[in-house]
């Protein structure tokens, strides 16, 4: 077992179901969907007209002048980081800047800023392109802005692995602490890709569900992981940041600990640029690595916040992975997909779901998977359709994320 123990001491998020952790978590436990008809003026030209906008606009929280210098993805990261920083009690804690690191990821980067400036270039000419466009759209902008705000002078990373990015950032944070490169890491992910170009692209590759977009359709019923009627994911937006800290550092300053981060596993399918390995072999290896790194007994794994995006193939493959790793214990594991409520936050997903996984361990309760009316017969998992209590004792929960490019990231959290 790795010598340095890593713990979670702070949480923050702005999500389609809540503007902070408390409201997001309560909405998840209650099975509340954050998916709505989109009202943007560009939406009529698209085959998909639903999505999960954040419940609280960042403009309601951030100072206006600061916000206009940030891509929407950075705005979400800043909102989430501020909550996590305050929650961890780091303000005025005397933390050395050289021991504070950041790993905040995005799957696509500042795509809205990029495309809005391209529109400006075409319509008004080069002179009108914002001088801030590049520092706003670069993929490391969310991480860099977080580092600027809190004076993080250790490494500032922005790992990118599409929809696994947020979880990879957390895995990277664990490594930084265990390698002694930082005592505290602000780790998470963010995404703001509800823009007509990425939405058209995802729709054209048959990844997004085209159900429920019609007038009178019910957007809240479309994201339905593992249900027989699932036909693609629903795009969400938002961000989440966790404070990861060496146990020694957390203990020395008397911090409140939500959970321990036991271990992480990262692998790649090398199978297809977009499709998951249908047998889930890469994901299986990632989960195995996470459990091995954390010296986790599979019998103690009682909860999984699954990647399950509501696509036909991916949801099945993840069930195969869990059976391959947990064996007979898979039957006692409560598996849920909070994407049924939030939609898919792409690079933000792994981070938001890490917050949910940590809260599930902390409160010993699993949120439900909504819209599971008829479970796919190929899926042999225990999926609660209303909140379900988790057992007492030392328990472990997994957070899985998989991304285009074949990325698989699993992180194992333990109760404290």
């Amino acid at each position: 077992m790795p010598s340095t123990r890593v713990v979670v001491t702070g949480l923050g998020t702005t999500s389609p179901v809540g503007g902070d952790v408390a409201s997001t978590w309560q909405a998840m436990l209650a099975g509340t969907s954050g998916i709505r008809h989109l009202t943007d003026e560009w939406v009529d030209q698209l085959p998909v007209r639903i999505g999960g906008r954040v419940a609280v606009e960042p403009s309601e929280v951030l100072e206006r002048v600061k916000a206009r210098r940030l891509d929407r993805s950075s705005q979400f990261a800043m909102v989430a980081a501020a909550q996590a920083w305050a929650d961890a009690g780091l303000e005025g804690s005397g933390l050395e800047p050289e021991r504070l690191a950041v790993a905040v990821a995005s799957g696509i980067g500042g795509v809205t800023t990029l495309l809005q400036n391209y529109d400006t270039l075409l319509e008004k000419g080069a002179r009108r392109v914002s001088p801030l466009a590049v520092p706003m759209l670069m993929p490391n902008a969310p991480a860099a802005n977080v580092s600027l705000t809190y004076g993080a002078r250790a490494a500032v990373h922005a790992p990118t692995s599409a929809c696994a990015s947020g979880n990879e950032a957390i895995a990277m944070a664990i490594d930084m602490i265990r390698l002694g490169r930082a005592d505290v890491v602000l780790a998470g992910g963010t995404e703001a890709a509800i823009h007509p170009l990425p939405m058209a692209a995802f729709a054209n590759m048959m990844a997004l569900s085209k159900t429920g977009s019609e007038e009178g359709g019910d957007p809240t019923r479309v994201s339905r992981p593992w249900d027989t009627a699932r036909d693609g994911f629903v795009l969400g937006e938002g961000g989440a940041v966790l404070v990861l800290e060496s146990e020694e550092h957390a203990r020395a300053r008397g911090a409140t600990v939500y959970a321990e981060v036991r271990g992480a596993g990262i692998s790649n399918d090398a199978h297809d640029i977009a499709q998951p390995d249908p047998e889930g072999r890469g994901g299986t290896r990632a989960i195995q690595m996470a459990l091995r790194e954390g010296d986790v007994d599979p019998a103690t794994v009682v909860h999984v916040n699954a990647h399950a995006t509501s696509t036909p193939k991916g949801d099945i493959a993840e069930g195969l992975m869990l059976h391959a790793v947990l064996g007979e214990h898979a039957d006692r594991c409560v598996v849920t997909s909070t994407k049924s409520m939030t939609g898919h936050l792409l690079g933000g997903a792994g981070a938001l779901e890490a917050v949910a996984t940590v809260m599930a361990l902390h409160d010993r309760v699993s949120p439900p998977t909504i819209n599971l009316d008829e479970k796919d017969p190929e899926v042999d998992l225990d999926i609660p359709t209303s909140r379900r209590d988790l057992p007492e004792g030392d328990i472990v929960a997994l957070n899985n994320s998989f991304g285009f490019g074949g990325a698989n990231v699993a992180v194992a959290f333990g109760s404290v």
Partner: protein
Amino acid sequence: MATTEEIRADLADIVNEVAGVDADDVQLDKSFVDDLDVDSLSMVEVVVAAEEKFGVTIPDDEVKNLKTVGDAVAYIERAQG
């Protein structure tokens, strides 16, 4: 033709929008950098917005000469001439 005060007021709105400076503080004798904390990238944004608003061109070489709000207003007045 816009008066000096009209140009100053419109420019003040732009500086407020870009840099968050209270529009009432954007007076002719104020220095963009020293008094109003408008940094170089914000100044580029102010200039581009001013070009659009006032229908003038302010070359990059000229921007460094616009130290005060009064310098900018005078330049705009001349350019609109």
